[in-house]
C-alpha cells in the first residue's frame, strides 16, 4: 500500500443553478491576461448540450484520454512516444480556435467619440487577437440554456445509446430539461496531459495531487491540449505556453478554498482530502468499462482504517492531513455513501473531481397542447423512485456522463438520493417515519441516521463542513530548500518578470 493524499472537489449538481459565478471568479483571478481570453479553467455547461470546447467528449475527433486493449496495456489515444516526437512540427489533434471561439471585446470608445447624429452610437465588436472588427459567431456559453434551440442538445455525445423514443421526447423543446455541469481540471490520478508532454513539463504534486504545468519547461509542443480528454489544458497563443486550472493552490496553501468553490452561490461545491493507494492506479485504469467506477473507488482508502493510517504515516503523511481526510465531505459522499461519481470514467484518466448526479422531474408528454405529467394519482407520489425510466434526464444519459454507460450505478445513486427525499418529506409532512419511507430507505440500504447525515451535509453544511482544508506546512516546504534567514535584512521581493512572448 502506497498511501498518498489528494485534494478533491465535489459538485452537488442538484444544487447548481448555472449562474457562472464560479467561471467569473476564476477568470478574474487567473485568466484575464493577453492570450488567455478564451481559456475557461472553470466553465459551466448546459446539459444535454455540446459543452466547451464544442463537442469535447467526442474523442474520435479530439483524440484525448487513454485506451485499454483488454490485455494489460493502456495506451494514450493521442500517440505513442515515438509518434509524439514526429508530431512536434504539426500536431494533427490540436483543437482549432474555432472549436473554442474567437475572443472578442467591444470598442466602447466609439460610444463617446461617435459624431452627433440621429442614431444611437454602437460599440462594434473587435477581435482580442488582431484588434480588427469581427463578426461574432460564437462565444463562451453560446449554448447557455440551449439558446432556445434543440441543436445543441441533439448533438450531445452522451445521448448515444439512449433509446430512440426517449431521445425523441428530449428533442421536443417542451420536453427538454436542463441540468448544469460545472467543470474544472479533474486533477486525474492517471493524467493524459502529463503522459503526452514530450518535454516533461507537466507534473502531479505528490502532496495534494494538483496537476501543474511548469511554464519554464513548457516548449509549446501542445500535446497536453490534445491529450486531455476533458480539454482542460489550454494553449496561450501570446506567451507560447500551456496553462491550466491550478486548483487555486496558492489559496489552498493558505487555508482557503479554490475561488470557484468559495464563490459558489448555490454552495454546490465541497472540498476535502482523499487518501488513495498509488499502487492501485494501474489496475484501476485497466478494467472493463462497466467496472471503472468501482475500481477507482477501490483505490480510495478508508482514513479511519488503522492499517491505512499506519501506511499513511509511513509515507510521511501528517496527523493533521489524516484528520482532514477523516472529516472530508468528499470522502463521505464518494466512498461512505457512494453517491458521487467521476466524470467520464471511460477516459481512464481516473478523474479526482466528483459529481453527485442531478435528479430530474417526471417525464411529461404534450397532449392536445397541454402538458400531461402522467402522474399516478392513486399511489404515493414517488413515481420516480418506483420507475426511474420516467425521469426526464434519462438514466442512460447520466450513465454515459458519470458511469461509462453502467446504468446500474446511476440507478443506485439516484434511488439513494430519492430515498433521502422521501425520508425527509415523510418527516416534515407526516411528522414521522412512514412505512413507505422506511421501505424506501431499506431498499437502498440506508438507515435513518445516515439519511439524516446525507440530508444535513447536502442542504445545510457550514463553510467549515464544506471545505475541510488541511494545513499545508508551506513553511516546512520552504525551509527544506531555502534558509529562512537568508533574506533577513534584505529589501524587496526579488525580481518579478511579466510573462512576455519570447522574452
Amino acid at each position: 500500500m502506497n498511501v498518498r493524499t489528494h485534494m478533491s472537489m465535489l459538485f452537488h449538481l442538484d444544487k447548481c443553478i448555472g449562474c457562472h459565478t464560479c467561471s467569473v471568479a476564476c477568470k478574474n483571478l487567473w485568466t484575464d491576461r493577453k492570450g488567455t481570453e478564451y481559456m475557461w479553467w472553470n466553465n459551466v455547461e448546459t446539459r444535454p448540450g455540446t459543452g466547451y470546447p464544442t463537442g469535447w467528449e467526442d474523442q474520435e475527433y479530439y483524440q484525448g484520454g487513454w485506451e485499454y486493449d483488454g490485455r494489460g496495456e493502456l495506451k494514450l489515444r493521442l500517440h505513442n512516444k515515438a509518434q509524439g516526437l514526429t508530431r512536434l512540427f504539426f500536431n494533427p489533434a490540436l483543437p482549432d480556435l474555432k472549436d473554442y471561439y474567437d475572443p472578442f471585446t467591444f470598442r466602447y470608445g466609439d460610444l463617446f467619440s461617435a459624431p452627433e447624429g440621429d442614431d444611437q452610437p454602437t460599440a462594434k465588436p473587435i477581435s482580442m487577437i488582431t484588434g480588427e472588427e469581427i463578426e461574432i459567431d460564437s462565444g463562451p456559453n453560446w449554448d447557455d440554456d440551449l439558446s432556445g434551440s434543440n441543436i445543441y442538445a441533439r448533438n450531445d455525445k452522451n445521448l448515444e445509446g439512449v433509446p430512440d423514443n426517449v431521445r425523441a421526447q428530449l428533442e421536443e423543446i417542451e420536453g427538454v430539461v436542463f441540468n448544469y455541469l460545472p467543470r474544472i481540471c479533474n486533477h486525474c490520478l492517471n493524467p493524459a496531459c502529463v503522459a503526452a508532454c514530450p518535454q516533461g513539463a507537466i507534473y502531479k504534486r505528490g502532496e495534494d495531487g494538483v496537476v501543474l504545468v511548469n511554464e519554464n519547461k513548457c516548449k509549446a509542443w501542445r500535446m497536453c491540449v490534445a491529450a486531455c480528454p476533458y480539454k482542460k489544458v489550454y494553449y496561450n497563443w501570446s506567451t507560447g505556453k500551456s496553462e491550466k486550472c491550478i486548483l487555486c493552490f496558492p489559496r489552498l496553501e493558505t487555508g482557503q478554498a479554490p475561488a470557484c468553490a468559495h464563490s459558489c452561490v448555490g454552495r454546490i461545491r465541497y472540498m476535502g482530502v482523499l487518501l488513495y493507494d498509488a499502487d492501485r492506479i494501474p489496475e484501476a485504469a485497466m478494467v472493463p468499462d462497466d467496472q471503472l467506477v468501482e475500481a477507482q473507488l477501490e483505490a480510495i482508502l478508508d482514513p479511519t482504517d488503522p492499517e491505512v493510517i499506519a501506511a499513511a504515516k509511513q509515507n510521511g503523511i501528517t496527523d493533521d492531513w489524516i484528520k482532514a481526510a477523516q472529516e472530508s465531505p468528499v470522502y463521505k459522499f464518494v466512498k461512505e455513501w457512494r453517491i458521487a461519481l467521476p466524470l467520464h470514467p471511460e477516459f481512464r484518466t481516473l478523474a479526482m473531481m466528483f459529481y453527485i448526479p442531478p435528479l430530474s422531474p417526471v417525464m411529461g408528454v404534450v397532449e392536445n397542447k397541454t402538458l400531461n405529467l402522467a402522474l399516478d394519482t392513486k399511489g404515493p407520489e414517488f413515481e420516480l423512485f418506483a420507475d426511474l425510466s420516467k425521469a426526464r434526464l434519462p438514466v442512460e444519459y447520466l450513465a454515459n456522463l458519470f458511469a461509462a454507460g453502467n446504468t446500474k450505478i446511476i440507478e443506485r445513486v439516484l434511488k439513494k438520493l430519492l430515498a433521502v427525499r422521501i425520508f425527509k418529506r415523510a418527516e416534515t409532512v407526516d411528522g414521522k417515519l412512514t412505512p413507505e419511507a422506511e421501505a424506501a430507505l431499506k431498499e437502498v440500504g440506508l438507515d435513518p441516521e445516515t439519511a439524516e447525515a446525507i440530508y444535513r451535509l447536502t442542504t445545510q453544511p457550514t463553510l467549515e463542513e464544506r471545505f475541510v482544508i488541511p494545513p499545508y506546512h508551506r513553511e516546512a516546504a520552504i525551509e527544506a530548500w531555502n534558509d529562512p534567514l537568508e533574506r533577513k535584512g534584505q529589501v524587496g521581493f526579488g525580481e518579478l518578470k511579466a510573462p512576455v512572448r519570447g522574452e
Partner: protein
Amino acid sequence: MNWNVLLFEIFPYVALVLAVVVTAYRYAYRPFSVSAISSQLLERRLLFWGSIPFHWGITIILTIHLIAWLFPGAILAWDKSPLRLYLLEVTGFALGLWTLAGIVVLTLRRLAHSKVRATATVMDYVVLLLVLVSVATGVYTAFAYRYGTAWFAGAMSPYLASIFMLRPRPDLVADMPFAFQWHVFNFWLLLAVFPFSRLVHIITIPLGYLIRPWQIVIWVRRRFTQPGA
C-alpha cells in the same frame, strides 16, 4: 583587414560566442522565454503545408551538412560512383526545394493571416528572412554550381574545422562564388541571431521522452514528515 577576414573569420567568432553564451544564459535565467511559440491554434491549414515540409526538410538537410562536415572522406567515397553522386545531388536538391516551398508558405502565412501577423514580433520576421535567404542561396548553389557534395567536403569541411580548431582560414571561402559566400555568411548571421530569437527552440528536442515513465509526480516537501518528529 579585408572583408574576407571580417565576414568569415571575425564575425563567426562573434556569432559563436553570442550563440553559446546568450543561449546558456537564456536557458539558465530566462527559461520562460524558451519556446517554439507555435501559432497552430490560430491557423492550422497553411501551417500544415508550411511547417511539415520546412521542418523535416531543414532537419534532414542540416544532418547531411553535418555528416559532410564531420566525415568528408565518407562523402567523397560515396561520390566515387557517378550514379551515387547523382543520387545524392538530386536528393539534396529535391529536399532543398521541399524546404524552400515550406518556408515560403510559412512566410506568406505570417504576412497574410491577420491573427498570425498580430502575434508576430520583429524578430519573427528577421528569422523568417534569414532562413528564407539561407534556403534560397543553398538551393541556388546546388542548382548553379554542380557537385556541391564533392567540393563541400573539399573546401567547406576544412574551413569549418579551421574555425573550430581556432586556426581560422577564411581564405578557403575567399574565391567561392558570391551566392555561396552569402550562404555561408548567412549561416553565421543566423547563429548570431539564434539566441535572441525563437530559434533557441531547436536545441530543445525532447528525446528524453522516449525513456521517461509516462507519469511524473513531484514532491514539494519530501523530507518533511511529522511536525516535531
